[in-house]
């Protein structure tokens, strides 16, 4: 196979951060090359240099054998390099087709935009991708998965021979991931070279040919995916062996009930949901996308209106009208969409961690105890291994996974009795994942009641004492956690549509 990209001796500094140290990377036509490393290892930064978004301090980049300077996204496009960003970069108010061709709108001979041509061109790309998407749909109305498809279509529209995908499946469910893989295989067979960044180990094995591992901004090595055990890759990433901990399920028979939900209903996504959660228990919520798990969490947390049912906290009914009531009742919610609901991006790490607990760190004149805050923030940065130059770094400058850890720290500090974690490990590397699992377990041991919503079945199985499965807004069953339950059983409940069909015809 011919080599299309060779990056060598790449150096990159940000204020206070040495992001890339002598990094290297090479890519061949027609291969899927996975790029792996812990949060903050420099994966996105290296690829942004290739896509012309950052410029390297020093080092060399060769495309198709000749030395190039890529000084902007345009230059990268001209070289046939397309990138799908970790954080989607779309214009929500524009249509699908307008997004794809932004900057390259077809015009008629008077120089006027040719909207019909624009939509036809977009249509052609979707046809080639075998993805049914309406080019005239407004992007803000699409699901994240569909938006991802728009990003891919956009990258393809440049006739890219090199396609960089930065955690494309972070927000996709299993079916959508399969669709994406089908597209990747098709592109690969056409000779497109693909860089694939992901924290999901099982994907790497399935889709990639070679794997390059980075640690702390430096190159660690490149291996073939087929005959390298996952454990080897992981230890190259974290620089040590990780021990697999399996869960010991405690006997909570007589632990007091912390949260009881009876007949909770709200719209089509939450129908008659009832369950109990004991102190010290971790209750996993499994289900397919759109099963209504997030909706249940949001209603309990008062973020969406409740239409029916009761919520009992420590045995007494509570009226929860908004998140403030919920926090008052000792309920914390870590939302799945950290950008939109979980973080103040322009504020520093310390300020974000303190956000829900400022009242505890201020005196009666509302003066903030900065020294106390700094101490707490620093201790969380250490215990969650948040990679940041200091607790005063603005959160938007952290890597994706490290931002997620800040949200977790925020809710841990708030010290709620009942904690709801919605996709807590999305975009988080294996090392930190193990760290977060350990943390959740120790929180449970300390008597907290915990709900974990996760789309990754292995994660649910590994963490939960009991597993609640949802399908189309209904709770279809509660299974015991641990080895007694198989993924198969969960999937059976997650696709049990009979009740839902009844509801729809009523």
């Amino acid at each position, binding site marked *: 196979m011919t080599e299309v990209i060779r990056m060598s001796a790449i150096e990159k500094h940000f204020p206070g951060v040495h992001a890339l140290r002598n990094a290297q990377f090479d890519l061949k036509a027609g291969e899927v090359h996975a790029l792996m490393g812990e949060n903050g290892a420099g994966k996105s930064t290296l690829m942004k240099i290739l896509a012309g978004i950052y410029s390297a301090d020093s080092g060399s980049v060769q495309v198709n054998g000749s030395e190039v300077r890529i000084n902007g996204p345009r230059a990268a496009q001209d070289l046939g390099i397309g990138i799908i960003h970790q954080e989607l970069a*779309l214009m929500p108010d524009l249509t699908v087709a307008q997004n794809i061709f*932004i900057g390259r709108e077809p015009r008629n001979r008077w*120089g*006027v935009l040719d909207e019909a041509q624009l939509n036809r061109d977009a249509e052609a790309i979707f046809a080639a991708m075998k993805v049914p998407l309406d080019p005239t749909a407004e992007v803000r109305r699409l699901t994240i998965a569909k938006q991802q498809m728009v990003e891919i279509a956009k990258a393809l529209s440049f006739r890219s021979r090199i396609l960089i995908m930065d955690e494309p499946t972070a927000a996709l469910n299993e079916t959508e991931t399969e669709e994406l893989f089908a597209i990747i295989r098709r592109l690969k067979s056409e000779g497109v070279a693909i860089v694939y960044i992901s924290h999901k180990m099982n994907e790497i094995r399935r889709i990639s040919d070679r794997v390059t591992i980075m640690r702390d901004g430096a190159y660690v090595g490149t291996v073939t995916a087929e005959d390298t055990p996952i454990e080897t890759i992981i230890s190259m990433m974290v620089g040590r062996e990780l021990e697999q901990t399996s869960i010991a399920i405690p006997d909570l028979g007589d632990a007091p009930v912390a949260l009881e939900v009876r007949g909770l209903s709200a719209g089509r*996504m939450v129908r008659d949901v009832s369950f109990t959660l004991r102190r010290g228990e971790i209750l996993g919520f499994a289900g397919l996308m759109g*099963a209504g*798990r997030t909706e249940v969490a949001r209603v309990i947390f008062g973020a969406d209106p409740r239409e029916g049912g009761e919520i009992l906290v420590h045995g007494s009914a509570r009226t929860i009208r908004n998140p403030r009531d919920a926090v008052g009742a000792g309920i914390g919610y870590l939302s799945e969409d950290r950008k939109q609901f979980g973080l103040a991006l322009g504020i520093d790490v310390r300020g974000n961690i303190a956000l829900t607990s400022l009242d505890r760190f201020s005196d009666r004149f509302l003066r903030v105890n900065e020294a106390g805050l700094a101490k707490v923030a620093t201790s969380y940065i250490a215990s969650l291994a948040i990679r940041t130059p200091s607790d005063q770094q603005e959160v938007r400058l952290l890597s994706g996974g490290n931002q997620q850890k800040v949200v977790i720290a925020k809710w841990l500090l708030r010290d709620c009795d009942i904690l709801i974690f919605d996709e807590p490990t999305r975009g988080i590397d294996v090392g930190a994942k193990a760290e977060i699992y350990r943390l959740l377990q120790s929180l449970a041991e300390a008597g907290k009641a915990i709900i974990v919503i996760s789309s990754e079945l292995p994660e649910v199985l590994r963490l939960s004492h009991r597993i609640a499965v949802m399908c189309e807004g209904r709770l279809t069953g509660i299974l015991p956690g641990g080895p007694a339950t198989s993924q198969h059983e969960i999937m059976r409940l997650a696709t049990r549509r009979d009740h839902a069909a009844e509801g729809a015809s009523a």
Partner: protein
Amino acid sequence: MTATPVAAKPRAIASGAQQKLLAFASLIALLVFFSLASPNFLQTANILAILQATSVNGVLAIAATLVIITGGIDLSVGTLMTFTAVIAGVVLTFWGLPMPLGVIAAIAAGTACGFISGSLVARMKIPPFIATLGMMLILKGLSLVISGTKPIYFNDTPSFPLISTGSLIGSIFPAVPVPNGVLILFLLALAISWMLNRTTLGRYCFALGSNEEAVRLSGVNADGWKVAIYALAGGICGIAGLLIASRLNSAQPALGQGYELDAIAAVVIGGTSLAGGRGSILGTIIGALIMGVLLNGLRIMSVAQEWQTVVTGAIIIFAVYADMLRRRRAG
């Protein structure tokens, strides 16, 4: 993950259309109310007066709409209008040059000032609020300096008042003596509306307001296009300057401050989002008409000037709140 409820719900009517509908319904309601309240209201002469009075604010509001769609704000439209009027006065009265040169000079001066504001915002990254606040004061001062703080009259250019008050339509159809100022407003509205929907410049206007970073990452010269939009808005303020100068047959250097707020109010009532990314010229025109009708109607009902101002303020808040309520309910 789970689908966000917003994404799952298809809408019967695009929200932009709904927004305009709401504004349009309010306009009709006002018209009905005032014509019932006062028999003088629906007279042709009064309707023409409303349109004439709306023309300047309408043109300024079009300029403000462009900038607001990009996610910015332009506080300098009012004093820029005055500045361009003074420039026209200098060219026509001080220098005694022919009228077309005055017209060109006013529009060119507006474009140049818009270019400066745009450069401050796009290239020097000064927040639009601050950059245009600065420009607002600079232009106000310059107008006074250049004119020697006195009004400049256009007595040497007898045809100058016709720009606004003459009636091209009336000379063809005497039954409908629509003043030129109004004609200019509507032609401009059509042109800019077309520009927004059918040209690259318009497309980038919405794209910038929607997600500037995404535009940049797409390899588009985001800063350059932004400067172009501010410059265009400045040129439109030049047209407003000509309209007001020709209506008053003079350039009044002390005038202008406060007009920017009326313009922004019209934009907001018309449903353009201050957050950028969405908006329409049609909405803005309806917004400007609502304000014109309201002021005229209150005057006809002999509501005191002070109270007119109070009502206008209340209407702005109400209009935006109603729009938010509607949007929240829609999903």
